[in-house]
């Protein structure tokens, strides 16, 4: 099967420290593999452990204590939330799973990676991209699409990395030296294909104007893509590799068998199918079509069964007679518990009856954290302990192990289970609660904010504790690298485990054998053993093709209706496009990360309409590129906020939120009140809109630089005049309601112009037309 020799020949070797009590677990023969990519992955882990741990703790603390960063707008919650997300998901947890996969893959394929250089390209391109992206986010160049904020440059680097991994993984699987592919390999293959596709689709952009890119989607389509992308990344980038590693490392460590082959087969295929459909699950009841909601709902509900099948196997694998280090067992047990809870919770709350209580609340975030940190992160940490033994040839000392896993488990339980889930549940109940007459029981949203604060604080405390665990993990990795045992000098070649011929087991005798039944019945009865799948698992191409087909069909039937909705919305009475000043206001809304805390989506639920206003329809979003539907309601929904407050209220609220809203956690945006906007920025925004086919007044776009003399006489360009007109209208409103005068040229004025239009747009004829 293998046509090329691996870079390092396969050997069995005994460990140099054999017999030393400290290395009691290492007395089994160790096969020699390429350690380079694994070691690099572990260094990257150490880096991200510190960065992501600190950023996560900082983000959650800043959310409840906005006054800590007053005067540093780039550190306000809305700005650093995307930073922590990318550092944790694409940085830390990805790095742990990638490092783990690079050893797991080689062991399961009985050979080194197809190309070592591609493995390095993968890790370097990916993590350089994420680090660069985080830096750009800090500089304020995010794309303001929840979960897909990275700009185009870093996105391209990540795409290169993920394609390199896909190619390398596929080729390694094709040229493996072991006949069948073990269960873990199925999960790795699907993860690689799915993530590459999700990343490319989710971040696809168009070049709107020279040097400017814009997301390729608009309106409901972009709202759907954002939510889908975030859900699918958590599922296919984090959960799938974590499950694959669990299937490899847990039985390997405990020595227990995987008890149900057919449970693994069912788990893999059904999780793939259900997961592909579940992409839009958080959008149940929103402006996207009911059909898409129903498909996503059933994807999530039916996921219960494959996930349970997996839990059955996990439970069996965790039984052990060996003496595993306590910290490893602790981590694996918490991963198991987290997975079982996710199984139940995410299926039950996906139903249309429970979605209102969980989507758009802290609950949805708690669920993501559960998969990322508890299942992905702790499985990754257990993987690191495993890698350390094989790559540094030293067992992690018990003390380090207990400190790392103790802090992580305690911290994450506090952050996710004690803090975030109850906050979400409380929010859902308070937001939706009405009495028998349909009267809201908690009409003032600030009550819902105040009630959640104590849970948010617990959550932030947990994240701080977990940050301690991550930093300890990084220190441990450095310490163990320093103490690592050298490569053994004597390599004993054993009979190579290459090209092990597959002996197909004979199926057990069927009870139907001596009955007068059709051959078909016999075949069906035999099929329940899933032995046919043993033949399937010899063909990586089958898994790659089937994954692509399943994803293509599932995503197709969910995206096409939404695309049709956007088209219909454009055809039937769309509202007027944003005016130049509103465009700038929207840009500021995006840059400050307002969507981190505020949604723009009123669902057809009585309590919600009473609280926020009319139900959101696809027409409301036609010009939104990117959509700002948001993720969860730390603050109230803003879809219909326009015209419910006067200009001065907004002005004061931006300057000092807690003065107008006692008990709020909104940070001050006082810098927007001082900074003047630049009309050149507006012109650039207009150009991107024109590139998308929206018609604006020609005169606004013509470059008519005025001479100094004209300027001296107070001449203004057409665009400046248009902006000034609307700026003065907003400024006049601020003055009328008691605010300061002459604020027509402030960034806050543009933001207020945008907010006052939300849910309150002029009809299409007022300004430009599509």
């Amino acid at each position, binding site marked *: 099967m293998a046509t090329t020799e691996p870079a390092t020949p396969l050997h069995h070797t005994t460990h140099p420290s054999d017999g030393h009590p400290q290395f009691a677990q290492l007395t089994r023969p160790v096969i020699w593999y390429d350690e380079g990519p694994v070691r690099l992955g572990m260094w990257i882990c150490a880096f991200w452990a510190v960065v992501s741990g600190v950023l996560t703790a900082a983000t959650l603390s800043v959310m409840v204590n906005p006054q800590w960063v007053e005067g540093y707008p780039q550190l306000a919650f809305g700005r650093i939330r995307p930073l922590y997300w990318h550092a944790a998901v694409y940085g830390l947890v990805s790095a742990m799973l990638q490092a783990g996969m690079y050893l797991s893959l080689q062991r399961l394929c009985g050979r080194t990676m197809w190309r070592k250089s591609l493995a390095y390209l993968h890790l370097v391109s990916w993590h350089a991209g994420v680090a660069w992206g985080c830096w750009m986010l800090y500089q304020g160049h995010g794309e303001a699409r929840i979960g897909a904020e990275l700009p185009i440059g870093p996105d391209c680097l990540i795409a290169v990395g993920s394609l390199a991994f896909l190619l390398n993984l596929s080729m390694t699987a094709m040229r493996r030296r072991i006949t069948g592919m073990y269960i873990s390999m199925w999960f790795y293959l699907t993860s690689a294909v799915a993530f590459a596709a999700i990343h490319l689709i989710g971040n696809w952009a168009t070049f709107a104007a020279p040097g400017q890119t814009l997301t390729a989607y608009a309106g409901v389509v972009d709202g759907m893509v954002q939510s889908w992308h975030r859900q699918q990344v958590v599922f296919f980038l984090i959960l799938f590799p974590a499950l694959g590693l669990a299937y490899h490392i847990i039985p390997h460590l405990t020595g227990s068998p995987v008890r*149900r*082959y057919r449970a693994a087969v069912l788990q893999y295929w059904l999780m793939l199918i259900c997961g592909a459909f579940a992409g839009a699950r958080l959008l149940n009841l929103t402006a996207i079509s*009911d059909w898409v909601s129903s498909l996503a709902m059933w994807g999530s509900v039916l996921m219960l*069964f494959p996930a349970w099948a997996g839990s059955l196997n996990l439970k069996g694998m965790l039984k052990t007679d060996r003496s595993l280090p306590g910290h490893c067992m602790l981590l694996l047990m918490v991963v198991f518990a987290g997975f079982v809870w996710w199984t139940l919770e995410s299926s039950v709350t996906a139903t249309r009856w429970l979605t209102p209580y969980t989507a758009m609340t802290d609950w949805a975030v708690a669920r993501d954290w559960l998969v990322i940190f508890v299942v992905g992160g702790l499985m990754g940490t257990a993987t690191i302990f495993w890698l350390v033994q094989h790559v540094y040839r030293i067992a992690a000392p018990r003390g380090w192990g207990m400190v790392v896993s103790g802090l992580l488990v305690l911290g994450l339980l506090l952050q996710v289970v004690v803090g975030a889930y109850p906050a979400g549940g409380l929010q859902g109940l308070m937001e939706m609660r009405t009495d028998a007459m349909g009267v809201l029981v908690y009409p003032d949203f*600030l009550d819902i904010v105040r009630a959640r604060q104590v849970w948010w604080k617990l959550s932030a405390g947990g994240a701080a504790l977990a940050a301690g665990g991550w930093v300890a993990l990084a220190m441990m990795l450095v310490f163990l690298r320093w103490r690592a045992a050298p490569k053994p000098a004597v390599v004993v070649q054993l009979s190579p*485990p290459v090209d092990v011929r597959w002996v197909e087991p004979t199926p057990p005798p069927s009870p139907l054998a001596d009955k007068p039944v059709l051959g078909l019945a016999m075949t069906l009865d035999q099929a329940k053993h899933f032995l046919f799948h043993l033949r399937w698992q010899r063909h990586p191409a089958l898994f790659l093709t089937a994954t692509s087909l399943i994803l293509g069909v599932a995503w197709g039937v969910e995206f096409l209706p939404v695309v049709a909705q956007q088209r219909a919305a454009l055809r039937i009475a769309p509202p007027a496009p944003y005016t130049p000043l509103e465009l700038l206001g929207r840009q500021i809304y995006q840059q400050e990360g307002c969507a981190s805390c505020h949604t723009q989506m009123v669902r057809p639920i009585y309590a919600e309409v009473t609280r926020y206003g009319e139900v959101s329809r696809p027409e409301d979003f036609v010009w939104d590129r990117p959509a700002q539907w948001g993720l969860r309601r730390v603050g109230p929904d803003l879809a219909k906020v326009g015209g419910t407050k006067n200009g001065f*209220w907004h002005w004061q609220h931006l300057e000092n939120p807690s003065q107008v809203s006692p008990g709020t956690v909104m940070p001050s945006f006082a810098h927007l009140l001082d900074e003047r906007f630049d009309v050149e920025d507006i012109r650039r925004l207009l150009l991107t809109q024109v590139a998308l086919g929206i018609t604006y007044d020609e005169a606004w776009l013509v470059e008519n630089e005025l001479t100094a003399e004209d300027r001296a006489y107070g001449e203004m360009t057409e665009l400046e005049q248009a902006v000034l007109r609307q700026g003065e209208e907003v400024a006049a409103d601020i003055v009328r309601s008691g605010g300061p005068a002459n604020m027509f040229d402030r960034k806050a004025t543009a933001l207020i112009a945008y907010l006052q239009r939300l849910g309150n747009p002029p009809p299409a004829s007022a300004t430009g037309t599509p």
Partner: protein
Amino acid sequence: MSDTFPVSDADSISVADQPMPKWWTRLFTLFVLICPFYLLYFHTGAPGRSEIERYERVAFEITKKRFAEIGELQPTRATILEYTKKPNWLKVGKMVFKTHCVSCHGRNGEGGVGPNLTDDAYKHVHDIEDIARVISEGANNNAMPAWKDKLSTNELVLVAAYVASLRGTHAPGGKAAEGSVPPPWDAAPADPGAGDGG
């Protein structure tokens, strides 16, 4: 274990062929069978089953239940005055107030960006009827926003009654009085033809 077969050689993990538990198979089959019926029920175009229609029906029923007793109210002096004396209906007004008004007028009506509603002075109100008018049409060129498109007439009347009932409660931390002091709400209107409010 007789039904154990080797799947992976590299790490000698053995994989066994135990059957799925019966409860798993049965529940899974049940749910897979329910799924098409659900999709058929909701997505074959029968009227009244889409999310938005379902919401509209619920909203209609709640409104009917809520206001069956009082019917369609008119924002007149007598009606508003009448409802300031009905605590169970003031509760509905209070809910509307807490949802939409507290951000400017304060949690107890003590004022903020908007004027204090718990003292005796009013900026645009000369009679109890004007309260409903100001809420509905807005005042001072929308410094007080117009709510007529966002609230039903019944809600307008009830929130007006609630605001009227706040008069003279002097909530702590109240903003200084602005405007003029109109006669007590239940006093006979001084001159029906004179006041146009504002």
